[in-house]
């Protein structure tokens, strides 16, 4: 029994590594890279890694990754949130350096590319969560209020981020990108559903008392 659980645990880790590693490997093999400068390549991969981190976040906070305790999961979730904000900064700064007028168009929502506004919305939502998380203690946000703020922003990050990625024609290979995006959506829906269920159970038991 213990062995089975352990086996399942390592299987989840392997699956997670593949879900993130395979799209990165495909992108690293893209012929597009030959015609891009190092900063553009850095910006591209910061974006791909950000998408991978967005998959890890719901898995950590939902406790679906075997091993560490809930406390450790929460701490890791916070650190990865910081890494996600950093990846977004590198992504945007690198693209700004590569083509300033295109980035200005994107940031002012006047870009001809349909995916740009989704990317910019994702960026602001990531920054908002990062800022609020760093101020949470100072603001005295209790868990309920924190969730009330964080969950809608997390949904924006996931949905707008996924749309942004899917509409881009770039270094990512289509199928591995679509699979990663589908997993991000699935993990987010799972976390929300579990949270909803827990709340319903708590509501019931509170009503019974």
């Amino acid at each position, binding site marked *: 029994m213990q062995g089975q659980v352990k086996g399942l645990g390592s299987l989840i880790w392997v699956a997670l590594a593949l879900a993130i590693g395979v799209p990165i490997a495909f992108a690293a093999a893209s012929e597009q890279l030959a*015609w891009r400068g190092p900063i553009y390549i850095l910006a591209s991969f910061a974006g791909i890694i950000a998408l991978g981190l967005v998959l890890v976040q719901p898995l950590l906070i939902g406790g679906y990754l075997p091993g560490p305790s809930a406390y450790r999961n929460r701490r890791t979730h916070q650190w990865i949130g910081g890494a996600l904000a950093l990846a977004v900064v590198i992504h945007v700064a690198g693209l700004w350096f590569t083509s300033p007028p295109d980035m200005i168009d994107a940031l002012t929502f006047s870009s001809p590319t349909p995916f740009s506004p989704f990317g910019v919305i994702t960026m602001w939502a990531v920054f908002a969560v990062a800022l609020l998380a760093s101020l949470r203690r100072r603001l005295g946000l209790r868990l309920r209020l924190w969730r009330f703020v964080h969950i809608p922003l997390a949904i924006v990050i996931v949905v707008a981020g996924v749309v942004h990625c899917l509409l881009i024609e*770039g270094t990512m290979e289509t199928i591995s990108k679509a699979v990663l995006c589908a997993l991000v959506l699935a993990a987010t829906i799972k976390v929300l559903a579990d949270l909803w269920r827990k709340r319903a159970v708590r509501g019931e038991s509170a009503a019974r008392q």
Partner: protein
Amino acid sequence: MTIVVLSRRNLLAAGGSVLASGVLAAGGSALLLPARADGLAPTESMTGGANNYRKGAPVVDRIGKGGFWMSGTVRRAGDGAPLAGQRIQIWAHTVEGQEHEPQSHGATLTDKDGAFRLEMPQIIPIFGQPHGHLAYDSGEFKTVFLRPIMRSAKETSLEAHFVLQPA
């Protein structure tokens, strides 16, 4: 039998009216031509069209090593007359350079039919979309910047059409 006769009569009547209206329309447009501005609408600049534009790209036989064709037409707003000898500037992120680099830019002139065609290196996706840039900015007509998108990054040609209005 009656049906056939009826339909033939209808056909004749319809044909006659089409002919009459065609003649009337042609006569009307000929009469109104000098003051007419509502014919062929001028092309509007596209958003992002002017990005990484460099003023005064030289007229060239080919940009870089070529392999990709950018073509199109230049016509006058209103009557749609082809405009010969118009300078069109072309640039893109290609296999030979980024959008802002000088070697990615070139210009060509339209022929007597208002058509232009310039060979350039293969365009590749930049900022998530394979696209090219074209500009008319010689001053005689109002400046127009275009940013056509390729349906697929594998395509080896792209078209863009200008309808210019006096500056």
